[in-house]
């Protein structure tokens, strides 16, 4: 010990004795709580800023490489830096609340530098009572119980199974929310109707224009089980019906599930001859999942997902061969345009397959490392047996700061989903500061 610090320690101890304070009293006095810190205000502003560094090990020979990086020259590696923010605001006056949330990012790598800005949600809410509210504006509806996927999320942009908790952009709609709590086995009943218009200026990416899409969710808490009955009328998309549930079984286990049917849905499928055709059918999708926490506080989250609109291994192989031809030496602009169109019609989704398994293990403060949360996530396409593994470590020990590092490792044979992605590996470090 240095003499200076020894002297300071002795001085502090002498001062404590002189003041008649024991160490525990000093410590007890350290805890203070002033209500003025959290006084309710009519307005609120919050958000975060984030910087992220990514290193990609690219796969230039992969079928999806030209779609991901368009006409860029092939590279083996790519480094990208991204700065982003999210800003949310709320203003409340009596029963009226105005709210907005926006995000923006600027990214640079060897291929491109770009920036984006998005209004994620923004609108007005009137809450005349605790059990009733009306919303008008851009909203993010969150239907379903699934973690990685949600087949019953009829009025949302799809989740990214790689990062299901990322903020998503909403759609402009009008909605109401009514809920009633009651005694007995049916402990709560809720009803959420909504209207989502689609025109050339509004919600154009939802589906066909010229429709006002109606939908509703009926929520029941029956015998300690959450149950939702969901419906979306035919309009910009086909009519869909669905049901979901979630229930705790003891203190350590939760189970959930979803089922949805798209009635008379049309999808484009490439035949084995490479020619696209339209199929019309009822498409059933479902998800079954469970979350289990061990006594050592390791959480296992497992989900099985079947996507009725997805493509089996043979159908994906045809698409990847088509891409190879279109962007190969013998490819033409017309073939490339058709490939892009097919990708937009469903083949280009993050997870375009039919059957998936998801497993995530996360540990809370393992080995007494408080605020270190390691996790390991696996996503597997069960049809072509390709998979992705994501080890991750998050540290939240500094107030309002989250440090996250993760690697994304892909594995799959040629012409399989994860074998044909543009990047075979990715290493990512991000630092997020909340305010």
């Amino acid at each position, binding site marked *: 010990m240095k003499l200076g610090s020894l002297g300071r320690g002795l001085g502090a101890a002498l001062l404590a004795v002189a003041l008649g304070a024991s160490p525990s009293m000093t410590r007890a006095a350290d805890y203070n709580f002033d209500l003025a810190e959290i006084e309710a205000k009519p307005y609120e502003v919050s958000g975060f800023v984030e910087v992220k560094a990514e290193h990609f090990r690219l796969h230039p020979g992969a079928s999806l490489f030209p779609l991901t990086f368009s006409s860029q020259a092939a590279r083996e590696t790519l480094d990208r830096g991204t700065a982003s923010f999210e800003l949310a605001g709320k203003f409340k006056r009596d029963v009226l609340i105005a709210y907005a949330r926006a995000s923006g990012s600027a990214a640079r790598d060897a291929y491109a530098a770009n920036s984006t800005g998005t209004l994620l949600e923004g609108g007005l809410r009137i809450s005349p009572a*605790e059990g009733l509210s009306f919303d008008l504006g851009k909203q993010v509806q969150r239907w379903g119980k699934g973690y990685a996927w949600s087949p019953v999320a009829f009025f949302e942009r799809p989740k990214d199974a790689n990062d299901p908790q990322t903020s998503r952009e909403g759609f402009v709609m009008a909605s109401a929310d009514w809920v009633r709590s009651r005694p007995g086995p049916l402990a709560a009943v809720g009803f959420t109707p909504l209207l989502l218009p689609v025109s050339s200026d509004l919600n154009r990416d939802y589906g066909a224009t010229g429709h006002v899409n109606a939908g509703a969710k009926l929520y029941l808490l029956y015998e300690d089980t959450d149950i939702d009955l969901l419906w979306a009328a035919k309009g910009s998309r086909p009519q869909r019906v669905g049901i979901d549930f979630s229930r705790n079984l003891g203190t350590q286990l939760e189970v959930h599930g979803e089922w949805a049917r798209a009635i008379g849905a049309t999808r484009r499928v490439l035949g084995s001859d490479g020619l696209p055709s339209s199929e019309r059918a009822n498409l059933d999708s479902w998800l079954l999942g469970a979350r289990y926490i061990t006594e050592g506080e390791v959480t296992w989250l497992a989900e099985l997902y079947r996507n009725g609109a997805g493509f089996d291994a043979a159908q994906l192989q045809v698409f990847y061969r088509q891409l190879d031809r279109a962007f190969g030496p013998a490819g033409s602009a017309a073939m490339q345009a058709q490939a892009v169109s097919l990708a937009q019609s469903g083949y280009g989704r993050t997870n375009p397959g039919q059957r998936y398994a998801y497993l995530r293990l996360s540990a809370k403060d393992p080995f007494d490392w408080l*605020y270190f949360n390691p996790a390991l996530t696996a996503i597997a396409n069960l049809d072509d047996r390709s998979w992705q593994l994501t080890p991750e470590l998050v540290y939240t020990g500094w107030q309002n700061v989250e440090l996250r590092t993760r690697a994304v490792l892909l594995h799959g044979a040629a012409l399989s989903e994860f074998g044909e992605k543009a990047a075979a590996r990715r290493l990512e470090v991000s630092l997020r500061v*909340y305010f």
Partner: protein
Amino acid sequence: MFEGPTMKLLRSFVLMCALAPAAALALDGKAILEKVDRNLEPENYEMTRKLINEEPDGKRKEFILYSVKKGRDKVAALFLQPASDKGRSTLRQGDNMWLYIPNVGKPVRITSLQSVTGGVFNNADILRVDYTEEYEVTAATEQGDTYLLDLKAKTGNVAYDRLKLTVDKRTVLPTVIEAYAASGLLVKTLRFKDIKDFGGGVRRPATVETDSPLYKGYKSVMLYAAVKKREVPDEVFTLNFMSRLDELRK
């Protein structure tokens, strides 16, 4: 030595007389526990608390929660600080618990053993309902100025299988609670300190310190800054209201 019927009768009478006062004075553990519940918090309340997780080196992480409770088993809590957790809310209805993370997802079911804050406190500590709702009193004894109550969970859905309460006779408030797992393992110890008058007839410990042999050297502290009676509609304790919980704050 021979004992006649009269002698037997006399002995039985003497034994009954000796035991009668003890039976009359037997402690009513359930009544004490009900009193503890009501002395700790009104049945319907709103409160604001600060949770402090302290590491062995003195480093701290703090959370501020606003909570409302109604009846014996409905409680909801909203995170006001830190900024990274602001807007998160948790809801409990009996054995059912949910967590809502704003702008990220819908309410998801959580279990009582999980912890939304990290540290020694788990969800059952943060969303505590009445002890009488979850536990039966299996033994009640006296020791000096305190009552000692042994509690056993009514169902397997309760976070701790057994509790041992040390209750101050004068205030009928707990001073120490030891929580045990079904295996008999001591999971954590809660120490109640600094009795404070919060007004409206609410007088309770303003500080609860918690440590656990599972987290050696770590400590979690709950500081109560405001506890007052308030009755809110039942609809507050539904999934639909979790994103709007801040509308209750005045």
